[in-house]
């Protein structure tokens, strides 16, 4: 049991559109991971669908790359659609 892999759990809630990460757990295989996810994360009717994925299979951006990855977007205000005049007829967007 020491070597059970870690799984990340994603649950689609009753009214939610997409699966959301809710946490992680250890399990011997994916099928059991779904069972455990059911018992750990959906006891109070939280979901209608469960995804699990081995944590090791997730490729993640590194916190150290935060600068090169995300900061260039900071100075590009023109990427936000705030420069358009919206005709009155359109109403609230």
């Amino acid at each position, binding site marked *: 049991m020491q070597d059970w892999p870690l799984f990340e759990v994603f649950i689609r809630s009753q009214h939610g559109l997409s699966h959301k990460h809710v946490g992680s*757990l*250890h399990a011997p295989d994916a099928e*059991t991971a779904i*069972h*455990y996810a059911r*018992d750990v994360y959906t006891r109070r009717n939280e979901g209608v669908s469960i995804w699990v994925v081995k944590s090791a299979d997730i490729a993640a951006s590194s916190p150290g790359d935060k600068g090169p990855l995300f900061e260039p977007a900071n100075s590009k205000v023109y990427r936000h659609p705030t420069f358009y005049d919206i005709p009155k007829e359109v109403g609230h967007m």
Partner: protein
Amino acid sequence: MAAPAALFEYLVRLGDNCLILGHRLSEWCGHGPVLEEDLALTNVALDLIGQATLWLELAGEIEGRGRTADQLAYLRDAGEFRNLLLVEQPNGHYGETLARQFYFDTWHCGLLQGLSHSQHPRVADIAAKSLKEATYHLERSEEWVVTLGDGTDESHARMQQAINDLWMYTGELFVMDEIEQDLVAEGIAVDLAELREPWLKQVGKTLDEATLTLPQAGWMQQGGKQGVHTENLGFILADMQFLQRAYPNATW
């Protein structure tokens, strides 16, 4: 319509199986091999205690003496309990707990499937609701029997031992008495003898997959349904009923 006394007796049998097994499983709470499994097994225990509540509530109503599910659970002595001997057997190691659960769940699913077509609408309702839970329990216990049976040499040997040791309590699952025969004739109960073949087949199939051997037919213990229990039940009740016995009518 069935005599209330017979139906009461039948419902108490259904309720006591769930209650005693649920209590047994609850003994694992906080002691499971890993956190995830601890939660999962405790969920099964809660399901079973929920089912026991439904059966015993209905039993109390049918009896008509004003006894609630709680009173039936906490204020009867061992001789009045009607659960199968299988469910009162000790937890042992985790493989033993799972072997007991595997035998029970396979039987329970067959029973509930039948009962969900009962002519008694309340019985049919409770059975249909319980069946969804039991189906999940069975999926779990089958998976574990395969995982441990087809695992390491040690887990295989221990699982086979557990399967063998509990075998003598499985004969009782299919024994009918007069009360059940009468209720079957009225379309209320399930003919347990008819469940035997499908049960053997399904148990055999899973054991096969687990590289385990189905035990040979042999001497079978029975008596739980008549209130003749193994010494284990007394210990269970001493634990389960202590509070109500020591502090009558205590609530919290």
